[in-house]
């Protein structure tokens, strides 16, 4: 009655092996390291390795090892002080062609890494770093769109020969004014045809002013909001790479917020500068009169042109200084397959004004190439003679060169892109260049590395002491059955850590709290079982029958209790916010693993210990 089919034993053994293997990496402490990755056009090779090694040796910075790991060079160091020193030396020595980042390198042995057993990444509160919460100013995005539509309405009226129409932004959207009721109705229906994303209603009327209230539809506003967030996420990703942070977290939170976590970084001011960079965009004609390569190698650059480099391969491009259209005129850019050929393309929409300029230019330049310059302005603060000097660093790149295939105005497509990925990237950069959504930092937190270490130490102590106390108490109170429950409890801890490691869940302080709470409550199932067995014994059952019926009767209760508890944990998960979510996930996984260990594992153990024996008394 307390014996089980083979598969149950097999399952328990399997869980045990899995738990031990995948929880094991967490015992290997990570060590401070400096990680070097190359910017576009540069590679990580043995030459670089030797160069870096030489620099560290001349500056007498001791290091443990220096290895190439894929496309990165990893230098392991004894402690964080040396780490900072090494990164300073390398940053100066290697210049801006390489990104030097502080990181924690894993010390997990290769055979464990080979089966994808890795330790849990540490959250910012345990590792130290900078946390930003940014809010995208959706209001200004809408404002800009409304301004755009106002000018579109005026030019539409001009096209359709509706006389003397004006349109301006008001508090409740756009107010368009026509000179007669008939004109107004005609304007309304024309807007409905060419700009279906607008909602039109009649406004006030006075003498010769017949107004229309024009609003951007809710769907369009929502679409704009998601687009701005996406575009900001993309540009942030590009910029954060410059910071030299090994594992940044950039995630959307809610409708209009972005979480940015930069582990290892200690200076929020530096991060803010990069985040605060602004980008602009310019369409310029390619100068075909002289060779860009010659210009690059010291040849003459025509006075009305300027030499740029291509993003990606760094090849030179000569562009005319005269501007065709700037980013301010760009309304939107979207990556989509070309409807005719199905090849990747970016569809671009300009404002009415920009469209006119583009039309004027393309009429005279069909068959000639045109380039797009992307300019990033990064504010910098330098200390010169003890004084703060604010300067700006300007980064200019040509992100696209395309041949003008025909005459076009406000709406056109860029084709000939290699992949949808490239199209997406171009659309992202184009949108970023017209970036109209300012990002405000609404929350900022710095966690020092020493605080992180302190948190980790205290958290680990709490887990160990909690386990020790519970194990001791249960062992004394339920004797042998208590010891069996203790074994299950420890196994539960191992399984929980193993599962969290497999999912690479970030370990945070609230997560540790979740682990401790799970351990405290996991024993509940064993308490239920033990109390039931005691009851059965009091009612006169034989020991074996008491065990069997004890497990049987307790199971229904355990199931109900755990399902309701799980509902509560899932409710917690509904929180978008990071720390509470981590806690809830830990709790939910812990509830499930505890049902397995407290019921199945202990029952199997009991079966192994008592199976086949004739018992007079039970140690419970």
């Amino acid at each position, binding site marked *: 009655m307390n014996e089980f089919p083979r598969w149950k034993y097999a399952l328990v053994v399997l869980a045990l092996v899995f738990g031990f293997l995948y929880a094991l990496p967490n015992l290997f402490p990570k060590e401070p390291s400096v990680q070097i990755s190359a910017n576009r056009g540069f590679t990580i090779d043995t030459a670089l390795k030797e160069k870096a090694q030489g620099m560290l040796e001349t500056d007498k910075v001791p290091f443990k090892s220096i290895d190439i790991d894929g496309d990165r060079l990893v230098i392991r160091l004894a402690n964080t002080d040396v780490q900072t020193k090494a990164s300073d030396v390398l940053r100066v020595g290697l210049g801006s062609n390489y990104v030097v980042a502080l990181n924690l390198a894993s010390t997990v042995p290769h055979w464990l890494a080979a089966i994808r057993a890795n330790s849990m990444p540490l959250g910012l509160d345990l590792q130290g770093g900078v946390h930003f919460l940014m809010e995208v100013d959706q209001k200004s995005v809408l404002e800009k769109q409304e301004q755009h539509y106002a000018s579109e309405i005026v030019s539409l009226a001009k096209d359709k020969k509706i006389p003397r129409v004006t349109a301006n932004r008001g508090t409740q959207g756009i107010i368009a004014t026509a000179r007669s009721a008939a004109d107004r109705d005609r304007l309304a229906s024309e807007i409905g045809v060419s700009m279906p994303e607008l909602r039109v209603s009649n406004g006030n009327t006075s003498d010769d002013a017949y107004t229309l209230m024009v609003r951007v539809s809710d769907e369009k506003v929502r679409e704009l909001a998601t687009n701005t967030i996406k575009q900001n996420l993309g540009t942030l990703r590009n910029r954060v790479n410059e910071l030299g942070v090994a594992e940044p977290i950039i995630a959307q939170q809610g409708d209009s917020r972005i979480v940015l976590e930069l582990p290892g970084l200690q200076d929020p001011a530096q991060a803010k500068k990069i985040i605060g960079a602004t980008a602009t965009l310019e369409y310029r004609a390619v100068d075909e009169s002289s060779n860009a390569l010659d210009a690059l190698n010291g040849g003459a650059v025509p006075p009305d042109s300027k030499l740029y480099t291509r993003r990606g391969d760094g090849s030179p491009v000569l562009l005319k200084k005269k501007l065709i259209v700037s980013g301010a005129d760009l309304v939107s850019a979207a990556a989509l397959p070309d409807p005719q050929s199905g090849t990747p393309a970016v569809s671009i929409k300009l404002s009415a004004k920009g469209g006119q300029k583009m039309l004027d230019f393309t009429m005279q330049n069909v068959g000639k190439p045109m380039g797009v310059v992307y300019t990033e302005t990064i504010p910098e603060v330098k200390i010169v003679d003890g004084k703060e000097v604010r300067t700006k660093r300007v980064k200019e790149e040509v992100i696209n060169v395309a041949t003008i295939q025909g005459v076009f105005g406000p709406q056109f497509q860029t084709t000939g892109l290699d992949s949808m990925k490239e199209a997406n990237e171009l659309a992202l950069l184009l949108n970023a260049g017209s970036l109209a959504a300012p990002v405000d930092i609404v929350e900022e937190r*710095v966690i020092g590395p020493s605080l992180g270490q302190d948190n980790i130490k205290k958290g680990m102590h709490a887990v160990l002491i909690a386990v020790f106390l519970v194990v001791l108490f249960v062992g004394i109170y339920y004797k042998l059955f208590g010891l069996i429950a203790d074994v299950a409890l420890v196994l539960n801890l191992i399984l929980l850590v193993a599962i969290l490691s497999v999912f690479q869940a970030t370990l945070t302080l609230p997560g540790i709290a979740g682990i*401790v709470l799970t351990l*405290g*409550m996991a024993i*509940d199932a064993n308490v239920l079982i033990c*109390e039931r067995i005691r009851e059965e014994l009091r009612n006169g059952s034989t020991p074996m029958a008491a065990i069997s019926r004890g497990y049987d009767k307790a199971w229904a*209760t355990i199931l109900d*209790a755990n399902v309701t508890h799980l509902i509560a944990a899932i409710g*917690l998960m509904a929180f978008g*916010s990071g720390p509470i979510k981590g806690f809830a996930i830990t709790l939910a996984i812990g509830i499930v693993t505890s049902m397995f260990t407290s019921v199945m594992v202990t029952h199997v153990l009991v079966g192994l210990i008592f199976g086949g024996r004739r018992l007079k008394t039970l140690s419970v």
Partner: protein
Amino acid sequence: MELFKSETNFDFMAWRKPSLVISAILCLLSLAIIFGRGLDYSMDFEGGVMIEVKYEKSAEIADIRNALEAGGLKSAVVQSLGTATEYSIRIKPEDAHVGAAAAEAPKPEADKAAPAEAAKPESAGKTETDKIAAEVLKALKVSRADASIKRSDFVGSSVGEELREQGLVAVLFVILGIMVYLWMRFEWRFAVAAVASEIHDTLITVGIFALTAREFDLPALAAVLSVVGYSINDKVVVFDRVREIFRSSRKGEPYEILNRSINSTMSRTIMTGLTTSLAVGTLYFVGGPALENFGLIMLIGIAVGTLSSIFFANPILLWLGVSKQDLMPRSKEDPELARRP
């Protein structure tokens, strides 16, 4: 070892009227405390000013805290920025004002400046931040002259609103989910009694916590929701026994059956309460400042939840008129239930 004699048979139900009245009074008191006195929301919810200070020579975090407190700037959060000379101080504007008022006589010009500031909210936020930063610096300079402000920023509160909204949604989701589950597995009276106990436990736990005048932060919110999870666990165990005894007994006298259920699960109620308290108690005592609130609220919640399992949930069940007929397995509709004891 046994904490309870197996044949305990307290007549808990005889206490049902006074215990329900006491529960109701405690709930009302908690409501009065929470809404009258208010919870001291942390910067997670309310926003505030973040100031980074720098010392010429290394400084102790405790000394900084003492200096701020002496200057009347209570409940400022001081954190090391990784070195012994740089610290960040987070403080809520209203705390800084209280501090200013306590530290020196009220300044009349501050009142005059107010309307002008209201007209320009952006610049107001800026001057506000500067004012608080100046107050902090003044407090720090009293003990250490080498303190200086590196920078100060205002951190918005919009995050908090969304958190509160999400918190409310989460609580509603949990209550609804538990109700539906208990309704299906037991009966509507059990669902109602469980949810009433949840609200009761949450209110009283938060009420007691408010009395400690500690800051209500994110871990505290997580703890409150975990108390809901713990307490429902406790109720379900007793309810399970109620259902079992109802089904197996011939007479089905609710008063007596509820008493027996409480008595026979008493040992496990106390045991689980103790083991969980041991675990979360460690968080309170050794987990460090970040986990203190979590541990404390869980400790309060376990005590409240245990008591309410005995003195609140079951009296409500009796009051709602639970009966044997309602709990008999409906074998035709649900064969799974029929198999169960």
